[in-house]
């Protein structure tokens, strides 16, 4: 599955990006360049789906793919999918259900949810059986505090809560395939039952450890989507204090600050003065805004006529490479304008 995801990303990057950009997108680097790449090449759904991925592990996988001839590098060190790799992609289309990834939306909340959910089950399941000392599987202090706070409220009726939680989780698992459901449950730890490690799950399912990480993440993304749609109370509590994180715009913190100023009616020059930043930086922010906020009015920055001229060239050439587009337009427009159009054009396509 991990191989498929990587090939999928590389294919979308249209041999215009290096291998590092694939890594940064999967790992979820919150840098302007990465967010822009994810936006531009429609990879927001896989953004940050593998934050634990180490660069050395990624390089190892990429080397294997290079060696097996499924991907290759062009002269600019840009990576592309070979014919053989494309065949793999077509053959496996639909196998891994990666359309359920919701990376950009759940990037900030996914791990938080998994930690709270797992530690709550371990804690309540043990305490309800009168076992008060156990080694918490989640060591993170904030999560432990969170579970403690909720335990204070639930302690008089743990059983009722567990029954509810079980009902809602079961209902969700019945909406997904059996294999994913089994994997999800194998990972859980409760009273006298310790979850399997990633290494053990990989062996049990006869896939790589990376595949297991991806399968688990995918299931948790589906779980989050399910919770948002159906809103079962026993599950909603794991995220309701942090829902703002879900609804947060997919942009860098700096762009968010610029947005707050622009909303009050400031121009680019005003923002430059207030934030003591260069013009190009503010322009980067506005491009980020154009992606993240489909309703943002960009006519202040580019007229409708100009927009259409650029959009026409983009339509004719299926290429996202700015310099090419710019020369096609005889250098009539600057990069900022072209990037704005690309941002909007993208949204229309979706």
């Amino acid at each position: 599955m991990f191989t498929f995801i990587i090939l999928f990303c590389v294919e979308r990057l249209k041999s215009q990006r290096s291998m590092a950009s694939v890594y940064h997108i999967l790992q979820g680097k919150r840098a302007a360049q990465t967010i822009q790449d994810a936006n531009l090449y429609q990879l927001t759904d896989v953004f940050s789906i593998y934050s634990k991925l180490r660069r050395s592990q990624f390089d190892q996988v990429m080397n294997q793919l290079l060696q097996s001839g499924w991907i290759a590098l062009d002269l600019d060190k840009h990576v592309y999918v070979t014919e053989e790799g494309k065949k793999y992609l077509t053959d496996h289309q639909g196998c891994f259900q990666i359309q359920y990834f919701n990376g950009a939306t759940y990037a900030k909340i996914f791990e938080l949810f998994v930690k709270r959910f797992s530690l709550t089950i371990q804690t309540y399941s043990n305490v309800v059986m009168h076992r008060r000392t156990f080694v918490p599987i989640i060591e993170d202090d904030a999560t432990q505090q969170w579970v403690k706070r909720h335990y204070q409220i639930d302690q008089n009726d743990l059983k009722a809560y567990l029954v509810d939680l079980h009902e809602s989780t079961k209902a969700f698992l019945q909406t997904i395939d059996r294999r994913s459901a089994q994997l999800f449950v194998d990972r859980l730890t409760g009273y006298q039952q310790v979850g399997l490690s990633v290494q053990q799950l990989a062996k049990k399912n006869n896939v790589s450890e990376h595949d297991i990480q991806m399968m688990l993440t995918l299931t948790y993304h589906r779980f989050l989507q399910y919770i948002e749609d159906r809103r079962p109370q026993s599950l909603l509590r794991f995220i309701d204090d942090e829902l703002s994180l879900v609804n947060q715009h997919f942009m860098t913190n700096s762009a968010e600050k610029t947005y707050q100023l622009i909303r009050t009616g400031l121009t680019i020059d005003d923002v430059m003065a207030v934030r003591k930043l260069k013009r190009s930086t503010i322009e980067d922010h506005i491009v980020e805004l154009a992606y993240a906020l489909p309703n943002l009015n960009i006519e202040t920055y580019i007229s409708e006529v100009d927009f259409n001229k650029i959009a026409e060239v983009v339509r004719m050439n299926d290429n996202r490479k700015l310099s090419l587009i710019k020369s096609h337009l005889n250098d009539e427009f600057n990069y900022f304008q072209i990037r704005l159009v690309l941002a909007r054009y993208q949204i229309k396509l979706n």
Partner: protein
Amino acid sequence: MENLENSLERYFSYKTFRTGQKEIISDIMAGQHVLATLPTGAGKSICYQLPALLVKGGVIVVTPLLSLMEDQVKQMKQRGYSHITSLNTFNTEQERLTIIRNLHKYKLIFLSPEMLQNQNVLKKLMLIDISLFVIDEAHCISQWGHEFRPDYLKLNNVIVDLKYPTILALTATATPDVQKDVISQLASVKFKKHIYPMDRDNIALYVKQVDHHHEKDRFIIAVLERYNVPTMIYFSSKKETERVASIINQRFDQLNVAYYHGDLDTSDRLLIQQQFMENQLDVICCTSAFGMGINKSDIRLIIHYHLPTQLESFIQEVGRAGRDQLESVSITLISPNDHQIPQRLIESELPSLESVEMLWSEIELLSQSKLTVKVDTNEWAQRYNFSEVHLRFIKNFLEAYGILKYNKYIVSHSSIHEAKIAIINKIKERSRYKKHKLNELLNWLATSGCRRQRLYAKFQSHISPAKYQCCDRCGFDLFQWQPKQSGYRQRINDYLSQLKSVMIPFNEDE
């Protein structure tokens, strides 16, 4: 004040003390300095954890083992005890500063010996009321101890700076020589000794010589075919833990086996440990990284696939079996040339003479050019292939001879040459010493006498007779062993019933 038993039950939910604990704690509470040797698994940590809850001031615990520190902090927090912290090189700079600033708020403070050399830490500690100063793994003080740590020698000064709090020096393995040395190194302290025997009368010792290491695999399979009991198999190579785990896994459908070594990530390590505790795993193939903080009383069988580097480690690892006092077995597998593995390990523990020579040439050159030269010692590590331990060893020497200052300046000094001769002699001496320790273990394997007598002879004068079987030399036949076997655990593979048993472990009708 309530009596010690009541406090023990209140804070730790144990009804009675184990051998030695009460005597040691009573002496400490009376302000006596104590040197205690308690065998592994005898509950050493209670000896300072309980006093920490009872005394007025703070308790400092110096320990060389980072993982042990973390384990203890975790365990105490689990019990709901939060005034506890650890200060070591794993902390980030920011964490460290915050902890140091708030040091007075903690009752129990774990420190590495290196941290006590940090002047900020020491100054802050001097302002706090310290009731008890614990030196864990006290054998590290002695250069005859198996894990000599130079920084332990500086503890004497720290004790003086802290104006003589009550001292508790604890160790699991100390020969009479080491005990004497520990006492002489801390000359200003008058110790009362509590020495408890480390021999284990419920563990039968069995050594199996084979012709080739493939035969070890076969032997293990033969043993596991016969016995399904909680088993640990010790290796000195990470790769081998994985290989043998996979062989066992292929051979036995019903057995649950896993490997464990330092390269697994933390969350996987936690899961594997807990699976073993909960009897979800029957066999664990591990390096010595496993075991620290493991408190499982019914481990029946310890197999050494590879040898450790000395008797002390061997005794500790074997001692993890049968804490419930039931009949247990230790099997050691040896094939020709097996001594080479621990030998290589020993060699890698010390910096090579060539790399030390090269480093000294660099230092000599630097000190000729200027009086004070700024250096980055981490670069040395890269250039000369020093491990963290090597680097600490070398820096200690350079500092002791006044050549390295503040960890970053090389000061032109007349004793550079003298220091080189000294460090080279030291390396040779340590290396001889470690080889001697390894030989002790090899001699034990070759012994024709009773293995039990020979294993513990160095550590104690009286050795209890075996409670069950003794050893292969005394006629113990491994396959006559009849322990209570674990049942095979039914693995449910139906996610709905599994989900239910995790989330609703209770009977819903009640």
